[in-house]
């Protein structure tokens, strides 16, 4: 019997496992790196293993440290979560060798299914179709290069021209080797308009194998799932039955134990599917299955790990559940990860809504790990109902401090294309309008900027530290020009200016338009501002970051038009701080893994200069124009912060002085 369960993972999945453990009366042991020490999941556990360092290799991937310190804390079982060591048979063996209970399938099964090549062989042997190509020709294009040991899109490359194949293989191998320790890659035909459908199975380790349900995870960006739902929509009964049967056929011969997921690629037009891979662990998106079945998948994992026997009663799916992954990233910048302090993080908790969060307000989102802030799951009677409810919750969520994909998720959930039926994996690529700043965003920014100025005026008047105590802001007895407040709209290219003149009562007016401040009052951590603009009433909740340096204040505005992050545009810049033109800066924090140029090199536009690895993805920084490398500010292997100058390329026009 498991009495004290160590979760060799972090964030929301650790919380998730602890929740079930607590309910069952099992004590818990959390593991945390230095960077994660303040996260909520750590405080939830009964015992903590603190591992110095921040990189995964120093912490969540360090098998010896995990087991040594886990045993010190009296753990008698290990749950690996997902990612990190979840599909590392060596870790599973080490856990078992240490005499602890491994919550997962036997190591041999992990080995077999963990190798995508071997797994495909196994699928073929049980009669499940697979996609494969050993010697690709023009006819097989496009192709997908994948890492054998991979997952989460890492090491994946789409190849549309055979000439690009060698480079894609090398790149994928390098990324895979860095991420998973194995550079083995393989090639398969790329079904562009396929759907990602997966079947959730459970086995008791004594021969009982059951299908718990299916899911659709087709909405993906960079081959990573962002929207997942259960049951898989628009699936003919026969196809669904065949998929379930295939999943059972695959799993039954394995001597499987615990939960697992059989991932399939489904071509809806042809009503055909192929086996992709089997994940021998709990999936990120397991909550949608839990929502429609009422099962606790973690509990089932623990039952199997403790030698319990099935079968369990599996209810037919009730209603529909959709999960979204809320990421710290900028969708319109190729899903570039963002980091920083999560100033506010409030997702409305409502009936039928589940939030599994890694981060809470006040936490720092660091560049060391996956940037998923939380999973938000809505369960409703129908797919449409679930999507609408989830979009509503997301819209009303207050997320301040780091940019997220929230607007994109809302756009997806409310789009006609999504609501019309099951999307394909090409969905986001085919609907770029869902990922960019919409017109509404710009209108929202304009309203937000005005609301922010009103709130700032009120706050200025109250908190002027005794100087001009309570004097109306911006007051002038001789008026020359209106006051102008400039905001950077974070995530948008153009700054926003608000011209205003002081109103006698202490509020503000617009120099030409009809602007009336209808009311300003304290609300939560900010101000609720009601105003009327040309007769139209609007309101917003405005939070002025109190900790910011003067002239660099962040302002967060939430309202029915959306959420806007504004930042004061400093009135002055020190000429010494100006960045020379031609400077290439890091778009995100990361490590310089390759440096291809030196000072004095002549470069051509588009030529790769260096490769930055951030959030396990490799980003190539290329020359913006023809020119000469004037300076190189970094070396291979150094860690850089977002905005840091990497290389300066002097173009023909010369650096701007």
């Amino acid at each position, binding site marked *: 019997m498991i009495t004290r369960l160590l979760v060799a993972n972090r964030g929301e999945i650790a919380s998730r496992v602890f929740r079930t453990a607590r309910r069952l009366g099992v004590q818990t042991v959390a593991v945390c790196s230095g960077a994660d020490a303040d996260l909520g999941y750590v405080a939830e556990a009964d015992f903590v293993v603190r591992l110095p360092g921040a990189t995964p290799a120093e912490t969540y991937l360090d098998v010896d440290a995990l087991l040594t310190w886990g045993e010190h804390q009296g753990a008698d079982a290990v749950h690996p979560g997902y990612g990190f060591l979840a599909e590392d048979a060596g870790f599973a063996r080490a856990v078992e060798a240490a005499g602890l209970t491994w919550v997962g399938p036997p190591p041999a099964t992990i080995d077999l299914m963990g190798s995508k090549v071997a797994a495909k062989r196994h699928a073929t042997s049980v009669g499940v179709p697979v996609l494969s190509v050993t010697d690709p020709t023009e006819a097989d294009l496009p192709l997908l290069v994948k890492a054998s040991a991979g997952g989460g899109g890492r090491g994946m490359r789409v190849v549309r021209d055979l000439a690009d194949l060698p480079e894609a293989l090398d790149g994928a191998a390098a990324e895979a080797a860095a991420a998973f320790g194995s550079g083995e890659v393989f090639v398969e035909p790329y079904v562009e308009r396929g759907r990602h459908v997966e079947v959730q199975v459970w086995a008791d380790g004594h021969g009982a194998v059951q299908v718990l349900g299916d899911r659709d995870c087709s909405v993906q960006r960079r081959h990573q799932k962002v929207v997942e739902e259960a049951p898989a929509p628009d699936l003919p009964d026969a196809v669904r039955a065949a998929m379930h049967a295939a999943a059972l056929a695959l799993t039954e011969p394995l001597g499987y134990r615990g939960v697992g997921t059989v991932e399939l690629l489904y071509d809806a037009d042809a009503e055909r599917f192929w086996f992709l891979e089997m994940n021998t662990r709990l999936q990120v998106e397991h909550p949608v299955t839990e929502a429609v079945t009422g099962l606790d998948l973690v509990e089932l994992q623990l039952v199997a790990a403790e030698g319990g026997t099935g079968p369990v009663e599996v209810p037919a799916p009730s209603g529909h559940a959709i999960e979204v992954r809320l990421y710290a990233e900028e969708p319109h910048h190729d899903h570039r990860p963002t980091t920083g302090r999560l100033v506010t993080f409030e997702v409305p908790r409502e009936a039928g809504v589940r939030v599994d969060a890694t981060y809470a307000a006040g936490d720092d989102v660091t560049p060391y790990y996956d940037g998923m802030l939380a999973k938000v799951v809505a369960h409703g009677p129908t797919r449409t109902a679930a999507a609408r409810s989830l979009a509503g919750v997301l819209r009303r969520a207050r997320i301040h401090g780091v940019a997220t994909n929230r607007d994109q998720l809302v756009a997806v959930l409310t789009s006609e294309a999504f609501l019309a039926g099951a999307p394909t994996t090409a969905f986001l690529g085919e609907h770029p309008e869902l990922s960019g700043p919409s017109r509404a965003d710009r209108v929202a920014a304009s309203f937000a900027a005005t609301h922010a100025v009103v709130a*700032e*005026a009120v706050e*200025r008047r109250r908190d*002027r*530290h*005794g*100087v*001009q*105590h*309570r*004097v*109306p*802001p*911006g*007051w*002038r*007895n*001789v*008026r*020359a*020009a209106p*006051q102008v*407040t400039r905001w950077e709209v974070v995530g948008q290219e153009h700054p926003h200016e608000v011209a205003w003149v*002081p109103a*006698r*009562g*202490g509020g503000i007016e617009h120099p030409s338009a009809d602007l009336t401040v209808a009311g300003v009052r304290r609300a939560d951590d900010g101000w609720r501002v009601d105003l009327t603009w040309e007769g139209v009433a609007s309101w917003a909740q405005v939070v002025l970051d109190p900790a910011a340096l003067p*002239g660099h204040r962040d302002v967060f505005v939430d309202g029915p038009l959306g959420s806007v992050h504004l930042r004061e545009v400093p*009135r*002055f*810049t*020190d*000429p010494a701080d100006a960045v020379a033109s031609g400077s290439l800066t890091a778009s995100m924090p990361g490590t310089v893994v390759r440096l291809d140029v030196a000072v004095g090199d002549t470069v051509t536009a588009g030529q790769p200069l260096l490769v930055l690895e951030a959030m396990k993805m490799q980003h190539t920084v290329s020359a913006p124009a023809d020119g000469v490398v004037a300076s190189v500010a970094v070396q291979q292997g150094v860690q850089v912060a977002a905005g840091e100058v990497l290389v300066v390329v002097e173009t023909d026009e010369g650096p701007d002085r």
Partner: protein
Amino acid sequence: MSETTIHDQLDALAAEHAKAVAGGGEKYVGRHRARGRLTARERIELLVDEGSAFLELSPLAGWGSDYTVGASVVTGIGVVEGTECLVVANDPTVKGGATNPFTLKKLLRAHEVAERNGLPTISLVESAGADLPTQKEIFSPGGRIFRDLTRASARREPTLAVVFGNATAGGAYVPGMSDHTVMVRGAAQVFLGGPPLVRMATGEEAEEESLGGAEMHARVSGLADHLAADEHDAIRIARRVVARWERHKPVAPPTYDWAEPDADPEELLELAPTDLTEPFDPREVVARVCDGVSVDNPVAFDEFKPLYGTSLVCGWARLHGRPVGVLANAQGVLFSEEAQKATQFVQLANASGTPLLFWHHTTGFMVGTDYEQGGIVKHGAMMINAISNSTVPHFTVLMGASYGAGNYAMNGRAYDPRFLFAWPNAKSAVMGPKQLAGVLSIVSRAAAEAKGAPYDEEGDAGMRAMVEQMVEEQSLPFVLSGLLYDDGVIDPRDTRTVLGICLSVAENTAWTGATAYGVFRP
């Protein structure tokens, strides 16, 4: 004379302010901007803290003279890095920012404000120096400008000069006498004598940059403490300089809860008398200027001696949470009782260290045998004695009439209130125009009678009309403001804000109530 309303007067005020803002006019402002330079007010807007209030002083200086309204300089009180400062900015679009007699008066008044209130001084310099045609009027008194700057420094009120362009001859001493200097590269030129004068004096062919350029002063002469890349950079540096002064006000601001006035300040426009023969109840003004009822201020206005000397309302109130004593004329005329009441009230305010607000609508002290016999002169003298020797901050607002000894007794300009502002309907003179003309008429008639000469009634009527009109014109607020007899004409609805700013400014110097007065003759 046609009936003018307060709205006409406010429009006229806005028009006069617009003249000051326009400076040298489109052509010269355009030329100035074309050289990549900011106007005086733009420089000030950049200098002061975002969203802070700026109280311009003497914006109508030079009104009614041959000089441009505003007198080629902007002065005022602004907040820079949380520090209230006197800001002085030459307007280079008006005759190159040259100093004329009104400029000088305005500068000297600004320095007086800085001295009385312990404010640091920031000079935004771009001036051609003295307006040579009027040199005889400015040369001798003009030296005080430099004396004031160094004395301010000696009082530990920091001085900072930011030089954007010419600072020639006397102008060179503004940076020269300031504690801190910032000069804009390629623009600032600071020298005692420019190339023409140098050639005249010594025959040397000097080049402007090496004679007084910003680079030279930063690297060679050492007159420039900071070299700025451009105007924005100069103001950025200036703000950093001020931030390092680490000024802390000696008087803590109040922490009381406060409320906006109980009555709508907009209604002050209806209350402001355009016919100055009409008295009005100043309590109505108090209710629209001072704090309304709040938790910490359960009664908005506590009157002192409400049943005695009822022609002068005295009482205690708060403004932006700051305690104030109010003296306001109720029925225009001051009698012995009012003077005695005021004398006691001023002493009480000094006993508690409470600042005083004087609100004028007075035609002066009552005349007549009964009143003279009742001691109106000695009682008026007591009032003037108390006010003259009072050491709490005083602020004066001319709401309507301000005539005769009433102006003195109510702390007129000659009594050095910290600040004095007028409403656009106010008038001030030794007596009302009609009375003055009438008095002149009576005196002439008496003289004629004494000589036994016949009295020219027609001439008398003409003389009276002329005098009446002259005095009427001379009593107008723009005239008085043009002559620097107030610190500005304000919209009555802004009275609360102006007084609020002034009260805050006053907190830059500590005060204690007076312990000694002149000999009273009760």
